[in-house]
Each structure stands twice: as C-alpha cells, then as structure tokens.
C-alpha cells in the first residue's frame, strides 16, 4: 500500500474546515477594508444612460420580484436606480411579486434620502403584491386597475394622484425589474415587445448571464447582483452597501479559486500515481 501524501489528505479534508475558513475570510474585509476599485460594465453604463433620458413627470414602473432574502444582492441596485429616478423627477410606481415586497419598498424609501422631499401617492407609490406570473403581467400591460384596486396600504387607486391617467403599459415610459427569477422574461414578452416599453434588469448575479443575449437590443441596460449595485453606486457617485460587499467578495472569491486550483493539483498528482 502506497504511503499517503499531502495531496491525498487534502482530497479528504473535512468540508466544515472550508465552511469555517470561508465565513472567517468573509468577515475580514468588513473589519479591515481593502477599498479596491470596481470597474464598470457597459451594461451598467447603458442602464444609467437610459435612465438619464427620462423627463420630468415620466411614469416608471419598478417591479420588485426579489424578496428580503436577496437584499444583499438586489437592494443596492434598487436603491441606486431609485436615486437616479428621483434626480430625473420621474413618477415611480413600485409593485411586487413577492409576499414580502412591501418591506423592500420601505427599505428603499428608508435608504434614499431623496424620498424625504417627495409626497407618497403623488410622486411615488407602492401598489402592492401580485401573483399569477405571465397572465398577471400581461393583464397589467392592458389594465393596471384589473390587478391593483388599491395601493399596499388599502388606499383606493383612484384616490392616488400619481395614478391619474395611468392605466396600462401605454402610459408607462420604462420598466425596471429586480429579479431572482424570470419575471423580466414576462415583462419582455408582454410589455417590451407588444408595447415597446424600454425594459431593464437589475436582479441577482446569475441573471446577468441569463439576460446577456437580450442586451442591448431588447433590454437597454442591466446589472447583476452586488457587483452591479457597486457599479451603479460608482456611476452615480454615491458609494453604498454594495461597494462594502464587494470588498468581502475579494477574499471569498480568492478562497474558491485557491480551492479549485489546489483540488485540481491534488487530483492531477493522485491520478498520475
């Protein structure tokens, strides 16, 4: 029987060692920030350029199809986009396909100082929760009032000044969708293609891969996860939560890459024998 080498032992390392190492490494940058700059993707630039084309009073729908569980990934982009929309003096309609979406809305309002000078129901509103996937998104495109009769607090939609004259996709200038799933597909199929409403995606990092073939022909801009959030924060000149998160990403990614390299060296060494 051949003698056990270090590579053999590394192949059998307890998974909990990796878990602990990962969790500790993730904490270090929060205590000692590295402060490395984040480069900006063309997709994020085109997103902000698209938002900057909005004029005062244009109605924009922000679809929150991500839950509180995805805040570290999705919230920074939602916050950054909301800041730009306020700068453009757009009217913002939020709605959500997550049962906890109202918490995300309230968190956005808490994190964006620009909302302090605005009036709820006049400049921005949260219409609340909807479910039903594509049929509901299609119905929202033709008749918003068939799905939302009130806002999320129960105020009748016709008592909200922001909703005056806003009945369907034809009255909306832009849709921004924050997804952990595939709701943006529905907005592409039911809003972007039939009505030509410019659409953008600001979901989790994997979404970036999924929607890359749509950019820039079908969706005018997109960001992926915390990285995308950090890019937006840099673009609008207001560094925030995502920039901090990206610091922690450095150590965790290094660990994963070192793990892959070590495992492959070990694999090659043991296979040769």
């Amino acid at each position, binding site marked *: 029987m051949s003698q056990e080498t270090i590579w053999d032992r590394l192949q059998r390392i307890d998974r*909990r060692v990796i878990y602990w190492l990962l969790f500790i490494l993730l904490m270090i940058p929060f205590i000692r920030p590295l402060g490395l700059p984040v480069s900006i993707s063309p997709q994020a630039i085109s997103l902000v350029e698209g938002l900057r084309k909005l004029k005062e009073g244009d109605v924009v729908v922000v679809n929150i199809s991500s839950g509180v569980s995805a805040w570290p990934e999705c919230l920074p982009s939602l916050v950054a986009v909301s800041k730009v929309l306020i700068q453009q003096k757009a009217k913002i309609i939020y709605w959500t396909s997550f049962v906890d979406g109202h918490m995300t809305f309230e968190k956005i309002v808490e994190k964006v100082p620009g909302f302090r000078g605005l009036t709820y129901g006049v400049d921005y509103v949260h219409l609340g929760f909807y479910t039903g996937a594509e049929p509901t998104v299609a119905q929202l495109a033709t008749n918003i009032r068939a799905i939302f009769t009130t806002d999320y607090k129960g105020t009748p939609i016709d008592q909200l000044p922001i909703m005056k004259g806003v009945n369907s996709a034809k009255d909306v200038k832009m849709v921004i969708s924050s997804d952990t799933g595939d709701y943006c597909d529905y907005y592409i*199929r039911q809003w972007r293609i039939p009505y030509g409403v410019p659409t953008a995606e600001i979901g989790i*990092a994997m979404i970036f891969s999924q929607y890359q073939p749509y950019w820039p022909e079908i969706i005018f801009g997109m960001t992926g996860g915390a990285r995308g959030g950090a890019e937006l924060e840099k673009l609008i000149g207001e560094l925030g939560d995502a920039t901090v*998160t990206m610091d922690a990403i450095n150590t965790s990614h290094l660990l994963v890459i070192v793990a892959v390299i070590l495992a492959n060296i070990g694999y090659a060494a043991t296979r040769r024998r």
Partner: protein
Amino acid sequence: MGYPTTIDGILGIWTALALMLFVYSYPLFKENQLFRFAEHFFIGLSLAIAAIISIQTTIRLAITPLMAGKIYYIIPILLGFMMYFILHRDYRWISRYPIAILVGSSIGLGMRGTIIPNILSQIIATITPPKAGAVALSWFNFVYIGIGTILAVMYFLLTFEHRGPLLYPTRLGRWIIMIGLGAYYGNTVLFRMAMLSGRAQFLLQVLGLVPF
C-alpha cells in the same frame, strides 16, 4: 440606521442573530435540535405570511369588486376554491378546471410572446455584423457568436445520434455550452458569496465590531 437603542430593537437583532447561528450550526457543526427549531419556525412563519397575503390580496382583487356589483367575480372565486380539491384524492379532478385556466393562459401568452424576443431577435442579433470600421476583435466576436450559436444549437438536435458528420460539430457545441456554463458558474459564485457576506456583516454588526 445605527445600532438599535430600544429594548425591542436590541432584542430583535439578538434574536435575528441567534436564529442565524441556529441555522448555520448545521453546516458549521452538525445536524442538531436548534437547527430543526429554526427550520420549522421559518416554515411556519413563511406559510402564515403567504396565507395572510393570499387572503388580503383576494379581498382586494376579488371580494371587493364582487361586493361592488361585479357578480360574475363569483366564478373566479369558485375556481380559486376548486384548486383546493387537489389535496383530495377522490375529487382531485375538480382542481383541473382552474389549472386549465392557469396553464392555458400561461401557455397562450408564452407562445405568442416568445417568438419575437427569443427566436427572431436572437437570430437577427447573431447574424448582424459589426458596423463598418469595427475593430478586429468585434469581427472575431461576431464570428465566435455566430458559429458558436449554430454549433450549440446543433448539440440540442436530439432527433439524430451525435456521430458521423454530426460528431465534431456537436462536440464543439458542447464546448461552447461549457464556456457559457462556466461564466454562469462564476456569476453564481458571486451571488452566493454576496449573500453570505451579508450574513457575516450582520454578525459583526450585532457584535458591535462594524457599524450598522
């Protein structure tokens, strides 16, 4: 948002931290009763919230219009209740009627909507060459995407066995798919790590080591 100063706030963040540690005791140590406690707590909580939102939204969307005179809203409400027969073996067939409406509308909308963005636009984007004066890399990318897409689509031609003239194109197609999945994996790692870093940050915040 700073460190909570109220009793309920302080109690809240420590409860949140305890629940987090209960859950992570499973990967970091081993299966245990605290993990099970937190797991069942979350399931009960999530179900209750889903049920509450379901009732609240049904009232706004269906009951209120019904009360306001839209008598025919009784039909979708009945269809909604018919869904619950799915739980009863003998009467499960009743739930097929609301499912027919859900599936029928989803498929109809999907079929009519998918052709332009997912087939036509994708083909147009693939065969549209770079503008005049484009750099060599743009032309390389154009050729790579064009040929790569054809090869990758060929890999999904499952009607024919991948041998003979199809052997090498489908093998290349598989490599193209692997490159795509590799990039997807890279983004997946980013997503998972960003989520976990949020938890690591929360732990440090509750301990007062970094600001809230």
